[in-house]
């Protein structure tokens, strides 16, 4: 079980709980604004872009090459960007804070 907080575009933090599956699916199930997950999580749409809190980045780790290539062409990408369909929920993610990219 992990509690994950999403900070949406209007700066409103929403904390939700998940057990398994991807962080994108958790966000979509909870109607987190700005996470659409159009491609269902196969890394093809970039509608699940989040910025990970700097000091927590090691929890989720680096993106794969394929994911980095997607992020490279997203104008709001920074060093802490991830496509959250590529992050699996585990207990270790408890307390994770993600800012939805705009």
């Amino acid at each position, binding site marked *: 079980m992990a509690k994950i907080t999403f900070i949406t575009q209007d700066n409103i933090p929403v904390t939700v709980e998940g057990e398994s599956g991807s962080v994108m699916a958790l966000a979509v199930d909870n109607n987190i604004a700005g996470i659409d997950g159009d*491609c*269902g999580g*196969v890394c*093809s749409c970039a509608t699940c872009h989040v910025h990970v809190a700097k000091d927590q980045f090691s929890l989720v780790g680096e993106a794969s090459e*394929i994911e980095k290539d997607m992020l490279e*062409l997203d104008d709001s990408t920074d060093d802490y960007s991830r496509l959250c369909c590529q992050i699996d929920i585990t207990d270790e993610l408890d307390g994770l804070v993600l800012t939805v990219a705009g």
Partner: protein
Amino acid sequence: MKKHLSPDPFKNTRATSGCAHMDDQNDPVTMILRLKDVRKTAHNWKTFQSGATPGRIVIPSEVKIRDTRQIPFEVDPPLHGSFRALLDPWFKRPLEADYKAKLSTQIKALVENVLKADKVETVAEFSLCLQSHALTLLLNTDGSEADTWIGWGTHVFRSEHDPLDGNKAALLYDYIDAQIKSAAINPRHDLYSVLLAAQVDGKKLTFDEIKGIMILTFAGGRDTVINAVTNTIAYFAENPESLVRLRNEPEIIGRAIEELIRYFAPLTQMGRVATEDTQVCEHAIAADSRVSLCWASANRDESVFESPDEVILDRKLNPHVSFGFSHHNCLGATHARQIMRILIDTLIEKVSSIDILDCEENIETLGEFSRKVGFHRLNVKFNPR
């Protein structure tokens, strides 16, 4: 060769050169074949514009057969973004429960109907019907309109043998003119009326802008959906074990949809016009010349996709570009994905197997390449469970 297969004609040229050249009515095109280059070019709208002369970014070019600018397709940022902000919410309606229920009713009825027949011509009697009925939901227009559109046949935008015969499209243009005018007199709850009432950047839309949006909604969602659905039927006909697998593992249906759409790439390519002298993967591109973003080739890029020529239903990492990439990514993708989802759910529930009786492939000629994009004719027998 198995009939569902869609061979990759770009393989060698993609690996050795990355680009290819094709002529099209004396307005040549440099085809961009690698995934990374396709994505970069699609993203770089300043150098590779969509807002050129109407019809020029389409291949074969439609410059000689139309003047109406298709919107948002032939508009560049920032105005493009304003149109998308207006249109995006409407085109996300396929995610709503009510929309899904109605689409499901339509597709179930169609599948039940074809199950009764000894022989079904998939393109005209299944895919076109499915596409037309589904479009009434997307436009939120009267269901009976579908019969009019089905009556136009599969070749309403181009004659079968002469892609530059503009007369064909007149039927659609006149129809859309009449629809906009009648919605202006008696407002309804459909897309025409929504556009008539809307503003973009503080201004009401002109008649031609509304027409440009509606034409694109008809044109962009017709052959693409027909190809996606017809190829999917051919795939399941020759891979009955896949129907069984999806029945047993419904959790992979989402991935299966993306994979079928990657593999079949229902839209082969789309053009852009260079605004300055530039280059793509070391090939010089002159200002005011055309390039194409070859989605079909990019989807088979072996530097990104493992076993790119195989349909791997549960492919986990699948950064395909069948719905385009970046600013102009497909506005109808939510609708198209919902069609695929409900089609597969319905086939799993009601169909045990599909037999292909005979077929005629639809092969596009693109310079040195021939690509199978779908079928002109696919006669099948659907067998019930």
